[in-house]
């Protein structure tokens, strides 16, 4: 599928376009993708937040993204949900 969309700092899975095949879970190099049923309690708020990315009008945008039918055509959307945007930046060694 092509259902993983790029925000500004995070990636979001379009719930209606995802087919539940699970191919992305082992493919993610930082183990950041969980099947909804396996999501640890501490991350549960991301279920709704992930959905909000598509259904809410995000800062700097005029309308929600909804279901564009393919992430590649959209490219980098350039906005995040308020939850993701609120996370402090982490120091990354390069």
């Amino acid at each position, binding site marked *: *599928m092509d259902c993983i969309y790029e925000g500004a700092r995070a990636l979001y899975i379009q719930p209606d376009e995802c*087919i539940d095949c699970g191919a992305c879970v082992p493919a993610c190099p930082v183990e950041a993708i969980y099947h909804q049923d396996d999501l640890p309690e501490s991350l549960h708020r991301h279920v709704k937040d992930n959905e909000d990315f598509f259904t809410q009008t995000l800062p700097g945008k005029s309308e929600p993204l909804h279901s564009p039918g393919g992430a*590649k055509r959209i490219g980098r959307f350039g906005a995040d949900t308020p939850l993701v945007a609120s996370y402090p930046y982490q120091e990354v060694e390069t």
Partner: protein
Amino acid sequence: MSRNKSIVTNNANGSATPFSEPPREADGRARSARLAVVGAGPAGLYAVESLLESASGVSVDVFDRLPTPYGLVRYGIAPDNQKMKSVTRVLRNAFDRESKVRFIGNVCFGVDISRTDLVKHYDAVIYATGAQAERRLGIPGEDLPGSYGAKQFVDWYNGHPDAADRNFHLNVRQVAVVGAGNVALDVARMLIRSPDEIASTDVPDRVLDTFRNSQITDVHLIARRGPVQAKFTPVELRGIGDLVNADVVIRPEEVLVTDDDEIRISSNRELRTNVAMLREWARRPLQGKARRIHIRFLRRPVRILGDNRVEGVLLESNEQLANEQVRGTGSLEALKVDMIFRSVGYQALRLPDVPFDEARSIIPHHQGRVLDENGRSTDREYVTGWAKRGPSGTVGTNRSDSAETVCSLLADLAARGAYNGSKPEQILTLLSNRRVDYTNWANWLQLDDHETELGRRQGRPRVKIPDLRSMLELSHHSNASGSADKTD
């Protein structure tokens, strides 16, 4: 001409004339590279998607031996997983939007059309033919009536035309499924689903009738190795635990995780998820549901019992060794079952005239480039999907797999820069001359509409038409002369 020579010829004196730039059509447009994809399953159609994204000047013909696209999405993924089947929304895009992509169905590679034909008429060929056969157990009794390959059952419940004349009598109570992969889970799950659940799927009507009359109470899933060695993906395994109609029965002592296994689990979240699920199921009390699925680890079938038909299976207990292998302990147990399915792996078959690695049951390749017996690229032949990597991964796995193959193909095409000049109608003329009853995308859409309409009337997503003759008729394909003329 041997394949080695053909490389030398093309490189050295260019029997295919080398062009410094792509040749032009009569109206001055650059001639596009013409590519053939053999197999319209997910691997083949992801390859088409990748080709269209990466290259503007290509046209693609997608061949399939059936008049229907989607391969295992239509005929492999279990009917109760319509969410995963919805990937067709993406896979169909190329045909719906692009006139330069043609579907040429009901054409069997090696029978109706050969490797030589394709290499002659196309600038490159991608084999996306999947794994058409399945492994056997190799034990006595395997051919008794009541013993089947899982694929026979999967073909049947999914309405594959190969299974149009096949019937399963589910008027038995105890069934064994041998194997520890997602296909084994699919088969076990379909066997214990309630008729009402099956009725919400797209199975053919006669399949639904068979499930309505099922007497099955217990399904025994038999795995040779331990829970950490099982090939289940967590999504599929979870489906077993959530069934409204069946309890999961696991003996806690069989959810055996060795010290070595613990190390594997610690670095693999999918394995951790699986083991956690299995341990939870082993602990939780049974709820007295109508049916049961028993998961048995570390058991190897050594003989299928019965004189005239399956009456049971003799299991030997295995013990784990350090290297993820197992050894029989000699301890035997007879399990009384009336039916047994082996689900120990699909296997690709050799395609006529195409290189094949018998030991690994794949088409030998380097990054998708088909290799001959000397390990050299056969030139303009490529492979993707299960024919390339073996029967592993899920639908989406094919996306990156096909992208790799297409990347190799386009790099070679750019370097070669020679276009063989066959015109789009030539391959259709060749098929017509051979009296091949090929179909096109519009034909499929007719059948698709018909099946969807049947489903609408029954409140189901679709009702599949399972026999080839009806499929062709409903494709409005009777007037063969006017068919498949979606030429550019």
